[in-house]
């Protein structure tokens, strides 16, 4: 029986974000709301599609390992025009390349950081795939939300901060790039 992969179920979804970041961040740094991303050059925005700044915000929250729950009021939340499965599928125009694999890494990070009882999920005991993916999305949204908050803080201090061409890069240069140095510990199996 061919059940849908967990990854694919997740990729059909579309994360939410708080509308308060629409004017102050998303529209400033991306072409969100203005049509096809291949007009980016003409407008001079740093990024193309709206989800791109979301991805950046997500990774900021992920690496800091800090989350921020979304606002309860659903009228103050929005989604992007494209579900995750389309993220990174750019046509290579105007000096950009496509980055289709990035979303797989996002998925991996979400699995690592979300406390899902996979055993029960595989048993289909008390939790189903939809619920599991909900939890993954919550992790995703909360990391991104924290990331947006982080960006907002910087903009309040200096509205031009991110116009320095290496401003975003520098955030990611500050994190440790090495893998955790301990090799996989051989955990002894419990005696049956």
């Amino acid at each position, binding site marked *: 029986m061919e059940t849908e992969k967990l*990854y694919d179920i997740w990729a059909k979804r579309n994360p939410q974000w708080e509308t308060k970041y629409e004017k102050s961040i998303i529209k400033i740094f991306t072409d969100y709301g203005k049509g096809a991303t291949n007009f980016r050059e003409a407008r001079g925005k740093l990024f193309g599609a709206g989800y791109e700044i979301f991805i*950046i915000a997500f990774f900021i929250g992920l690496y800091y390992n800090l989350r921020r729950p979304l606002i309860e009021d659903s009228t103050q939340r929005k989604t992007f025009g494209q579900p995750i499965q389309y993220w990174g599928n750019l046509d290579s125009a105007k*000096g950009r390349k496509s980055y289709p694999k990035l979303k797989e890494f996002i998925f991996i990070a979400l699995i690592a950081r979300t406390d899902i009882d996979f*055993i029960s*999920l595989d048993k*289909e005991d008390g939790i189903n795939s939809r619920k599991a993916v909900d939890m993954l999305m919550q992790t995703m949204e909360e990391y991104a939300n924290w990331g947006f908050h982080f960006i907002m803080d910087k903009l309040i201090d200096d509205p031009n901060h991110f116009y320095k061409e290496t401003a*975003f*890069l520098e955030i990611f240069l500050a994190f440790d790039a*090495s893998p955790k140095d301990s090799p996989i510990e051989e955990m002894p199996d419990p*005696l049956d």
Partner: protein
Amino acid sequence: MILEKLIIKNFRSYYSDNTFVLSKGLTLIIGDNGDGKTTFFEALEWLFDTSTDNKNVSNVSEKRKSELEIGETDEVSVSLFFEHNGHKELEKSFMFEKNANGVNTKNFKFIGYNNEGVERISINGKNLLESCFDTVIRKYCLFKGERDLNVFNNDTALKTLVDTFSGIKKFDELYDLTSEFERKSQDVVTRELKNDKKQKNEIDRIESDLSQVSQEIRVIKIDIDNKERKVNEFANKIRLLEENQDACENYQKIKERIKKKQEEKSKLIAFASLDYNSALLDDYWVLRPFPSIIDEFQKKISLLSREKRKLEKDENERIAIEKGKKEAIENIQKLANGAVPLPWNLPDKQTMQEMIDEEVCKVCGRPAPKGSEPYIFMTQKLNEYLEHVKNETNKKQQEERIKPLFLNHYINELNTRSIQLSGDTERTISCIASNIAERLEYIQSRKNDLEKINKDLQEAEDAKVQLLIQNNELTEEILDKNFRDFKGLTDSNKKTELDLAELKRTLGELERRKADLKAEQNNLTPTNVNVKIFQKVHTSFEKIMDAFLAAKNNNISEFIYTLEQEANKYLVKLNANDFHGTVRLIRTTNDSARITLFSSNGSQVHNPSGSQLTTMYMSVLFAISNITTLKREQDYPLIFDAPSSSLGYDKQEEYYNLIDKLDKQCIIVTKDFLVDSDKKIKDLNMDKINKLTSSVYRITKIEGFNQSDLSTIQTQIIPIKN
């Protein structure tokens, strides 16, 4: 005429009394720009001005003006003491008075004094000046600035010289007189001939032809004049280009350099730039810190996978126990320490087969010879694999009957994903950090290169500016066009020269034709006897007129020749050990002359250097002065303003010493012998000055002056040498 003393009082920057005692030979007056050199000269010019009574308030010393109280007066004066058939004085002055609105001037005086014995007789200044040092002479004695040195720039200069010194004025009068006779007599003849009906037509024809030819001759002469001027212009332009060949070549080189550097710069700019934000996504730079997350994930999944397999194993065991000893394929051999076995598909069939065939375990490296425990373990595992594959359907049927423990395979999916991460993917992610570092380093390197190129560019631009400053006759446009122009100019020049030759030939023909017509006119046989007499008279007058014309021309030629000879004597002296060559004065059609230089092998020096030019002109001037002396039986001083600024630095003392020895009184006002520095008041180069034989004065602004306040500026005279 020998100048003895000059006193300048309150004339512009010369505050109060300033006395120059002048040597019989050379007096050098040394000053920097703005020190009062030109003012010295202009004071003399003011003194010698006989055309106006100039009491302009602009000539009054600002400093003295500022010192006066209202109602107070003082005077501006320039006095010259000289010897010219006795000791004489010339003084020009006026009073100035401070009032509420400024300063007004009055009481202009121009007086000469004759000192005869003890008596001092005053006479009209203008008269004294004209009788001792008249306007014409002064024209060849006073030279302000280097351009004035080419005396023949002015068309009538030669004519004036010739008129004044060659006594040719008489010839002119005679020529004019005889021309008139010729004309009048011709008119008489023509009138009489016209009365003769027979000849009338002939006469009319000849007359009209003559008038036409004369007109053509006039036109051609103008043409020739223009073309000669053009040839001269070309010569000057070509000279300019040739002189500046070096500058032009350098300019081209600098331009090339600049172009090259700018090309390099644009290339570098491309390499030095990067879209860092796009790279975060497109190049996965945002995954730089991701390795630890991969780690987390793999560990978590590994644990999950193990746990699931354990549960599965336990479940299977339970089923097996419940259903008795069923040979379930899942009933796997126990492992040595009770550990959970690997899933049925790991290691894969190929790996297992390989290990069995080679009788070694390739994970721990220990040998597994046939029949040994490890060998049996491996073969059984392989069989299990094969059974499992074979018994897929059986298994499925069995599974349908038994409700499986695990309905979903998400953990398997995640496990597969985890395994896929190992190897290349993991390595790629780990490399991102170093890729970024390398890239940033590369960009920084390019930025450093860019900085260097910008510096180089700036240096080249500076060099270009320097070049233009040093050659301030030239603009960038000229330098650029130079080489291309050169060929064009020489071609145009050749053409003009050819045209000129053609024109001159035509002129010759026309003049022959005119002469022929005149002869025809003269040979007309009248019937009236009186007319024949008139004709003879006319012919005589014509011959006399021609004779005077020839004499006049000879006179001019002789004068020029004499001038040339004299000039060349001076040229030799002034050049001392240097280039010799000769000066040649070449007559031009409009009765003037050009001063040219020829080298000893007879070819013209088309582009003499600055110092050669100066020496050339000075030689001619000294020659003229000599001729003046001869004709007037009086010597006259030569007063130059800065004529040697184009001489090389080394030549200066030599040059002045030569002039000092010339047995002529010279006063030269110059910037030479000042030591170049940033000082406001430059020092004198005493080493060189001590080698001079002449008198030396230094004029300088008094210290503590304010550039923008004229009343603080005062020229101070310092005698250096006598």
